[in-house]
């Protein structure tokens, strides 16, 4: 046989073999479906289902080898295709369930986190509330203290003002009383009536001397006024002492003091002949010489109106 004859025979044989091994569409689909499923999540999530698809495909392949064109081969391949799709669908279901489970866990974790955050927020709020309350109480206390201080200062100021006012009023009264007393003292008129005695209280001398003190001028001025107002009157000016010292000394001292009064009035312009002087010593006391007050009463000048 020629080589070309061999080639033709081989080609015909190959054509026959190729025609005999052309898989039905169901088997092609089944192979693709299994490849797709095994490349996806099915191998990891649903290995048992993928195994069923593998077994179904193997049965279809064997049937294809035994009887390529039989309806049984096509139906078995069809079933294998559906088994592969089933594995894929169950894998998606398993993935969905896993997602749901994870989401539920996330939900619980989130709820726990929310509760934790809420508790923390509540604790912070409570702490802030306590701090604010304390701050408010401190501010109120400070305000009350300030108000108390202000009221106390006001009260002190009022008391001081009242004290100053009372002191001022008391001083004013005292000054007024002094002024009134001085006015009364200055305006008191000595009345000279014939045959009567007038005691000139307030005429004082230096100790154991016949020298008039400055305080005596007021009463001397009143005596002068009385003498001026009664130009026809003549008086006897008598000096008196207490019982301290001897009789002779007191007699001389009382006379000198009566003369000192007369000299003062003469210097003021009263005629000398209207006045005569006499020293009585301690012979005519007005009060007891047993006390200081009594002795002061007894040391005096008297005008006796003679005419």
């Amino acid at each position: 046989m020629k080589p070309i004859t061999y080639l033709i025979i081989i080609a015909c044989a190959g054509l026959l073999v190729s025609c005999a091994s052309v898989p039905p569409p169901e088997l092609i689909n089944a192979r693709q479906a299994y490849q797709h499923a095994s490349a996806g999540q099915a191998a990891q999530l649903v290995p048992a289902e993928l195994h069923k698809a593998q077994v179904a495909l193997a049965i279809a392949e064997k049937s294809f080898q035994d009887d390529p064109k039989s309806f049984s081969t096509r139906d078995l391949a069809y079933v294998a295709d559906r088994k592969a799709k089933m594995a894929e669908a169950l894998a998606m279901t398993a993935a969905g369930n896993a997602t749901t489970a994870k989401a539920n866990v996330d939900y619980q974790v989130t709820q726990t986190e929310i509760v934790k955050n809420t508790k923390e927020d509540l604790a912070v709020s409570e702490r802030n509330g306590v701090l604010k309350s304390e701050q408010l109480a401190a501010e109120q206390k400070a305000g009350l203290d300030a108000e108390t201080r202000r009221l106390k200062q006001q009260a002190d100021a009022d008391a001081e003002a009242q004290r100053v006012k009372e002191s001022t009023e008391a001083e004013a009264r005292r000054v007024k009383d002094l002024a009134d007393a001085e006015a009364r003292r200055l305006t008191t008129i000595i009345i000279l009536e014939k045959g009567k005695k007038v005691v000139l209280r307030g005429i004082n001398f230096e100790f154991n001397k016949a020298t008039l003190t400055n305080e005596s001028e007021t009463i001397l001025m009143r005596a002068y006024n009385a003498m001026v107002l009664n130009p026809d009157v003549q008086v006897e000016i008598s000096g008196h002492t207490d019982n301290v010292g001897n009789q002779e000394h007191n007699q001389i001292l009382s006379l000198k003091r009566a003369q000192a009064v007369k000299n003062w009035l003469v210097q003021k312009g009263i005629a000398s002949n209207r006045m005569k002087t006499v020293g009585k010593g301690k012979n005519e006391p007005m009060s007891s010489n047993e006390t200081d007050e009594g002795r002061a009463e007894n040391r005096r000048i008297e005008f006796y109106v003679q005419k």
Partner: protein
Amino acid sequence: MKQINMVMLAGSVLLAAVIAGCGSSPVLNKEASTSAIRAAEESGASKVPGASLYLQLAKEELENAKGIAAKGDKEQAESMLLRAQADGELAVALSRGDADKKEATEAIERVRQLRQDNQIPQERKNQ
């Protein structure tokens, strides 16, 4: 003569029974396929776009099997029933898968909404 008639009658009845038996369609075991179709319908496969096609195919294949059986080819009919069963079961799986997918989506949305309502960063849900 009477005995001969009785024998002939019995033979006639037996022959009629044999002829009748040979003329009826073979009994198919459709339980697995019908159960799968019923389960697919109960799972709502007819309302799930991805599953309704397979439910429809399963029903058609069941009818084809009946037709083939009626023509007397029990073997091919039972082979066709395998298709019906496989499509019915796939319709069930796809229908339930759709429900599970919806449930997963809703669960994720619940988490997202919870975090949004409580001002918690969304990115933490993927941790």
